[in-house]
């Protein structure tokens, strides 16, 4: 399974079966198979249509607010005393995270396909908010599935989705987090096949989702390339991003995969620590299996039953990872690390105080690894961190944790 031969290009996947090496594929029920094939055709058609691209660009510029800045984090750099750290400010996008890049693409595609009802799953609620936002903008019915545990810990986003006119369905089955929200969204899709478009929030699920979501997120890496050339006249030396399913990471990484001198790090959520078993690091602590339409690394027991993931961050609390990451891991192109809840909390506070930017707990996982990698690097090393979302949604949760400690 883990034998991946080194390809000529790391950017040519997936193949016609939706595989990245042995990963990916289309492991779905027959009811969904014709829909997945339809989507693949519709996406190929849209991709070839300059009008689709033009419409995307118009909305990215005037509605989302792109390009997002590539910001030199001067005080963080000085504090760590090593690599020159740039933050890719995806948290400044409309709706507060990178999720909107992908949702815009999928909603424009859904409109082309004549779909009138949009469903989505969400963990932290960032994808749910982005989906609810674009559904409001285009007058589409929107139903968001969210684990009941996440509804509780990400209340601000639930309120936002309601205000945007979406229906939020708290999912009570299983571990009542993101994985179960995905199951429930798939059950909805299998039931409402005619009018419903499933807007998946990350680079996972059956083909063509991992490819399509990646393509829509590549705007992140494409902009970084141009912005870094402008700022420093060259390519960055390293990239780092947090990974749940891995869409912000894939969007940043993909345009650089064939630049061998660019070192790339993905950071998974280590929860209470990998050795405790209470984590969400599927590459570090899992193995290949099949779930939610694709083969990828998963957290499971010896009998193939899926384990619950554990992370302080609802957006990373998922026992799988996008199949392209699984492939890049086995091929050795990207180095996958992890950060614990505690490390993320510390990074969350550090960035807030040093740069006046409150990051999402998800992005704080990437920052946690920056804190120990950057000081070991020379001052002319250019490091780009994906600041995938803003932390407003996490403020009540983090305040509660910190209050408990001081009292």
């Amino acid at each position, binding site marked *: 399974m883990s034998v991946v031969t080194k390809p000529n290009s790391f950017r040519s996947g997936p193949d016609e079966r939706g595989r990245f090496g042995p990963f990916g594929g289309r492991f779905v029920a027959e009811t969904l*198979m014709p829909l997945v094939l339809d989507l693949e055709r519709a996406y190929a058609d849209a991709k070839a249509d300059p009008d689709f691209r033009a419409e995307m660009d118009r909305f990215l510029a005037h509605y989302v607010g792109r390009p997002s800045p590539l910001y030199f984090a001067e005080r963080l750099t000085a504090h760590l005393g090593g690599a020159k750290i740039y933050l890719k400010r995806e948290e400044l996008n409309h709706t507060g995270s990178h999720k909107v890049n992908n949702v815009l693409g999928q909603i424009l595609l859904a409109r082309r396909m004549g779909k009138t009802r949009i469903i989505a799953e969400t963990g932290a609620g960032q994808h749910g908010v982005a989906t609810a936002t674009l559904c409001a903008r285009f007058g589409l019915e929107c139903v968001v599935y969210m684990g009941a545990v996440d509804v509780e810990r990400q209340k601000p986003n639930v309120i936002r989705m309601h205000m945007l006119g979406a229906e939020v369905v708290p999912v009570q089955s299983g571990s009542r987090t993101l994985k179960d929200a995905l199951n429930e969204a798939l*059950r909805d899709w299998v*039931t409402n096949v005619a009018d419903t478009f499933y807007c998946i929030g990350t680079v996972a699920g059956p083909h063509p989702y991992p490819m399509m979501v990646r393509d829509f997120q590549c705007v992140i890496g494409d902009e970084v390339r141009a912005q870094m050339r402008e700022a420093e006249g060259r390519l960055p030396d390293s990239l780092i991003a947090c990974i749940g399913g891995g869409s912000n990471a894939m969007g940043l990484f993909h345009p650089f995969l064939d630049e061998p001198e660019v070192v790339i790090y993905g950071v998974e959520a280590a929860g209470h620590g990998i050795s405790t078993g209470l984590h969400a690091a599927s590459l570090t602590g899992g193995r290949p299996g099949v779930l939610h339409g694709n083969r990828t690394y998963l957290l499971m027991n010896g009998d*193939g039953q899926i384990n619950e993931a554990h992370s302080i961050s609802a957006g990373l609390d998922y026992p799988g990872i996008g199949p392209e990451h699984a492939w890049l891991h086995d091929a050795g192109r990207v180095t996958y690390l992890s950060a614990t809840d505690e490390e993320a909390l510390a990074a969350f506070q550090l960035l807030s105080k040093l740069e006046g930017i409150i990051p999402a707990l998800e992005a704080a996982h990437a920052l946690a690894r920056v804190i120990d990698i950057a000081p070991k690097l020379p001052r002319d090393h250019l490091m780009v961190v994906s600041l995938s979302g803003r932390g407003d949604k996490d403020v009540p949760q983090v305040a509660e944790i910190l209050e408990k400690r001081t009292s």
Partner: protein
Amino acid sequence: MTRRLCARFDECRAAQRAALVTFVTAGDPDHATSLALVKALPEAGADVIELGMPFTDPMADGPAIQASGLRALKKGETLDRTLALVREFRKQDRATPIILMGYYNPIFIHGVGRFLDEAKAAGVDGLIVVDLPPEEDDELCLPALKAGLAFIRLATPTTDDKRLPKVLGNTAGFVYYVSITGITGAATPDFGAVAAAVSRIKRHTRLPVAVGFGVKTPEHAAEVAKAADAVVIGSSLVEAVRTSLDAQGNATPGTVGAVTSLVRNLAKGVASVRKAA
């Protein structure tokens, strides 16, 4: 390879009635009760036993079968124990076909080759694996056929005439028509549409066509039996298991009987429709 399945469908045809396929989850509500239940099914009127292999994330199943699988997992059911259950059953019954139904991951983790060898040796006749469409046939379908196990495919309302040949291509034993777009145990199907769909499928294959999803009562079973070669009942049987349990979720002396009496009534419903031999 589909000897037991063919023989059973032939018998039902000779008796001028549709076959009754009963679904229960292996290990629900516990392994011992589940074994007793499976042993009691043929006498109650089950022609084919569809045995669910529990999975934590059954994406195509409704609340009843989800809960049933979780009960079994909680009581320690594993793929090994499910295969052991089939071996035990085969000691007393060599004629009733057993189909294992589930999702791919537990099989993939067990090892496809090892799973097929063990299933065949245990006396399994066929497999239904929900998340393996024809596009992924080389994963399990083709090895299963080679190992002498039927791979029973689901055809659905979204499977159009253009796609049907692809779906039927490597199907053996029988075809399972999913009567609704949706999850197990959900909406009641439109029986007129089901009849039309069965005739549509029969234009493409000579295999028997079974119909399931949303079929709950003896009256539903009779309606489906008019059109189909077999009627599949699942959610209402695992619901009968659930309602028979005590407050702690353990089996009671009434658990097996609760299911078999329902199966008896469903079998009557199926047999009430006389079909051409």
